[in-house]
Structure formats: structure tokens, C-alpha cells
């Protein structure tokens, strides 16, 4: 029987680390360790003697792992960067998803692939969630600006809320712009005039 692979995930963001660990556990039987705190990273990673290390591609701490990957003292196990060198597509998919993997020499490519696939999928999912959250925030912001613009129009022209919104929408359509943009201009202009 093959020894279980040991995976270290380095991620200071608990909200992301959790789902990634789940994804890895669904993909197979692995020992997964999470490192949340970046100080003294090299010795923490070495202590786990991992077969594979996963880390956010953009994490400044990656440069620390690059050094570990190059260490080749008699007691260190050589680490190859990324996956099996022949699999350029998987490498590219990982870079695009924003995950980088460090794999100890001698771990077979077919054992690495399901782990990478799971990590890539979770990283993508997390990116999407983050993009959605940002979009929701922006929408809420815009909602507030539109409400303020309506209030300004209602006061300035003595009209009802519904008419104020109709006026905003008509202006936006006439100018080929978004309601939010017109509202923003009204709020800004009112700030200057009043």
C-alpha cells in the first residue's frame, strides 16, 4: 500500500483555507496541514515534511518556498517546483487559478494531478465568490447613491419619488448612460451647489 501523501496548505485566510481543505479531502485520502501564520515559514513547512505544498500564487511568502525548493543539503528532500515538468497545461491552469504547488521529487505525476485539480477548482470558486461579493458591495453602494439623487430631485423640483426615478431613468436613456452614473453626477453637482 502506498503511503498517504502529506499536503501543507499555506493560507492566512481561514475563509479560503477551510473550503480548500474540504476539496482536498473529497479528492482523496491525504494528511492535510494548514499554516495560517507566515512568520518563520521555512521551519514550519520543513517540520511537516510535506510531499506537496500549496500556496497562493501572489503570496509574498512564496519567495521563501522558492528557497526551500532549491535547498539540496543531505537531509533536505529535493523539491521540484510545480507539477511534473511535462504537464504544461496543468501548470498553466494552476497559474491562472492563482495557486502554486511545490512537489517533492519522486512523487508521481498521476498522484499529484487530482490534488492540483481539486486545489485549482477551489481557488477558482473562491475567486468567483470574491468577485460576487465585490459586485454586491458595488450594487449596494449604487443603490445608496440613487436614493440620494432621488431625494435631491424631489426637494429641488417638488416631485414625488416615482417621478424622480422616472426622470433619472429617462435622462440616463437619453444620454446612453447608466442610472447610477447620472445619480452620481447629480449628487456631486448638488454637493457643489448647495
Amino acid at each position, binding site marked *: 500500500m502506498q503511503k498517504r501523501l502529506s499536503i501543507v496548505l499555506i493560507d492566512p485566510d481561514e475563509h479560503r483555507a477551510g473550503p480548500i481543505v474540504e476539496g482536498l479531502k473529497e479528492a482523496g485520502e491525504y494528511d492535510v496541514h494548514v499554516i495560517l501564520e507566515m512568520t518563520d515559514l521555512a521551519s514550519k513547512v520543513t517540520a511537516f515534511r510535506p510531499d506537496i505544498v500549496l500556496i497562493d500564487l501572489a503570496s509574498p511568502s512564496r*519567495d521563501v518556498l522558492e528557497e526551500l525548493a532549491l535547498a539540496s543539503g543531505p537531509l533536505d528532500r529535493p523539491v521540484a517546483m510545480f507539477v511534473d515538468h511535462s504537464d504544461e497545461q496543468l501548470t498553466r491552469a494552476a497559474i491562472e487559478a492563482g495557486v502554486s504547488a511545490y512537489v517533492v521529487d519522486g512523487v508521481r505525476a498521476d498522484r499529484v494531478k487530482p490534488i492540483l485539480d481539486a486545489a485549482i477548482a477551489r481557488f477558482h470558486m473562491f475567486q468567483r465568490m470574491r468577485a460576487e461579493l465585490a459586485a454586491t458591495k458595488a450594487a449596494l453602494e449604487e443603490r445608496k447613491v440613487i436614493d440620494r439623487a432621488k431625494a435631491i430631485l424631489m426637494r429641488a423640483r417638488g416631485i414625488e419619488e416615482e417621478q424622480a426615478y422616472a426622470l433619472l431613468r429617462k435622462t440616463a436613456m437619453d444620454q446612453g448612460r447608466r442610472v447610477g452614473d447620472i445619480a452620481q453626477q447629480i449628487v456631486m453637482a448638488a454637493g457643489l451647489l448647495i
Partner: protein
Amino acid sequence: MSMEIIRFGYVPLTDAAPAIIAHELGFAAEEGLELDLMRIGAWAQSRDLLGAGLIDAAHMLVPLPVAQAVGLGPVLPPMDLVMFLSQGGQAVAVNQDIAARLRAEGHGFNFNNARAAGQALRRVVRGPLRVGVPFRFSTQAEIVFHWLEASGFGEEVRVVTIPPPMMADAIDAGEVDAFCVGEPWPSFAVERGAATLLLTGRAIWMSPPEKGLVLRRDFTAARPDTTGRLMRAMWRAGRWLDDPANRGTAADILCRPHYLDLPPELAERGLRGRLMISSAGETRQCDDFIAFHRDAATFPWKSLAALFAARMIRNHGLDPAPASQAAMDCFRTDLYREHLRPAGAGLPGASLRVEGAIDIPRLVAAESGQMILRPDAFFDGRLFEPPSAT
């Protein structure tokens, strides 16, 4: 006119200035380029994004493409360094305990004598010395290795990688005893009271090439016109930056929240070469602390690629001849000549030379007329002969 967009990766450091200035002051636009500047957190990320084609160009540590060329990185498409973007800008710092022992020993922290500083350090450091550098393959690592070896240090030195923004914390927490990193991080550590600055990089090596413009080889071949325009934009931004009158403005622009996001006063120290070396407020004036243009600062000598490769060959047991050749092949003096000749850049007669042989600015024959070369001597008189110059 519609602008051609270049996705440009930079790591937020003072020496990212040529890219940021080219974008902000219109040097890129003059060449019909719009720089889509992307802030990058790690050198490995910059290399990977460039390799995967997710960025078109990168502000990168000079030895990093050399490491790729000699096979010490992941398998990615070949990348070339087409010009240097900066020289110098590094400082060596020690922790407060070592600083106190150096002072007790009578060391004056004059900040420019690498021999005296190395000897003093040798006397006060007993046992291991851990030194932080930003990346395994960096000019900082070359400077530190060379200086410590030449000062009589040996096995007890451990060079460790620490991301620059964490350097002050690392020395404060005792993870390292000393470090060598580019501005503004040495000044940041002094400001935090975590370290005292001992030397500039230039005190060890008068012309340490620090960052380069790195592109994929297939990009330079498929888009020669764009490559040339990008190089000229960087070169003119560097010329603007080397006017001392512009350095203050440069600091203000660099420190904006979406770039370095630091107080401009901090970046200004490096840019003006007026460094505060200790939290007691002692300052040192270092002329030419960082250069972006002057005296052929941007010319990517192939012999420098061989110099950086030499240590990689030694440390990693590589086959010397093919490794040096691959290293020299990725410094594209041919593209430099082709694309910067029209802008009026001084072009040296040769692309290889003995490194470390010039100790004062020297007038030499150029492709046309004459030009001045920067001094590039090492503090201990080291000379490096590239393989094919012998």
C-alpha cells in the same frame, strides 16, 4: 490614436519608478503604449505570470531571468532581459544588538567603507550570522555573499529569503541578524527602530545592477516594434528620473496608495540619497545611491549575466560552459542596440567586458563617438572575467 495595452507587472519598490513614471508622466503614451500596471507580491509570481503570458512585461530582479536560463526555475517559456531599469538602491542593515557591539568596538558607521564594516562585523559576531535577502536569485544575495566571503566569513553565514515588507518584522523578531534589501524597506526598518543601516550596496559593488525589463523571448520576436517602444518609454522615464530636480516629485508619485502606499518622505530618502541610518536620526549623504539612466546604467552587459550565473553554477553544481552561455544569451544587448539606438542611447563597442575594472567614471569609445561608463569596482578589487572574453 488608439493605444496598445501592455500588461506590466511590478513589485512595489522604489526602483519600480521607471514603469510608474513612464505611465504617469506620459513617456509610454508618447510611444503609443498604455501601461496596465499590475502590482505583484512575489518575485516567483512575476516570473510565473510572465511565463504563462498573463502579463507582457515585468520589472524583475536582474539575476532572476539568469536563474531561469540556467534551469533553476520551473519549466516556462524562455524570457529575456532587454535592459536594466536601475543600479544600486540597496542597503545592508544589522540588528540593534550587533549595531551596539559595533559602536562599542569603535566602528563609526560612515556607511561607505565595506572593508572596515566587514572587518568590524567579523570581530563582533561570534557564531552563526543569519542574513535576510528578498530572493535567492537577487543582486542583494550576490552583494551579501561576496562581501561576507571577502570579509572572512564562511560556513556560519546563512542567507535566508524574507519578503521585503516583512524584513523589519523579521529582524525585530530575531529571525535574522542582518539583511540586505532595496529601498524603501531599509528606511522602513530604521523608522520602526528595528535596525541600523551599515552599508549601501554600492559601497560593496559600485555598480550593482538591480532591476531589469524582462519580456518573453517569443514576445520580443513576434512584436519587435512594441518591444522597442516599451524600451524607449522606460529609457526616457529613467532619464527624467536621473534629473535630481525630479526626485522629489518621483517620490510623491511612487508613494500614492495604489503604488507603494507609504509616506513619500520614506521613498524620498533613497531617491535623494539622504538616508537616515539609525532611529537616533543620524543621516548619511550617498551620491548616486540609486541610478536609472546615467552613464549607460541601462546597458545589459552579457558579462554581468555570466557573473550572476557563476555563483549559481558553483552552488548548484551546474555544467559551467552551457550554463554561462545560456545566461549570456538571455541578456539581449542586440535588442538594446537595435531599439535604443534611435533614441540616442550611448552604445558601448563591446557587449562583454571584465567586470569590476572601472573605479572612476571612464570615457570610452562608443559605437559612434565616445561615452562615459559608470564605475563598477568591487570594494576588494574583485575582477570577473566572462568565459568568452578570455
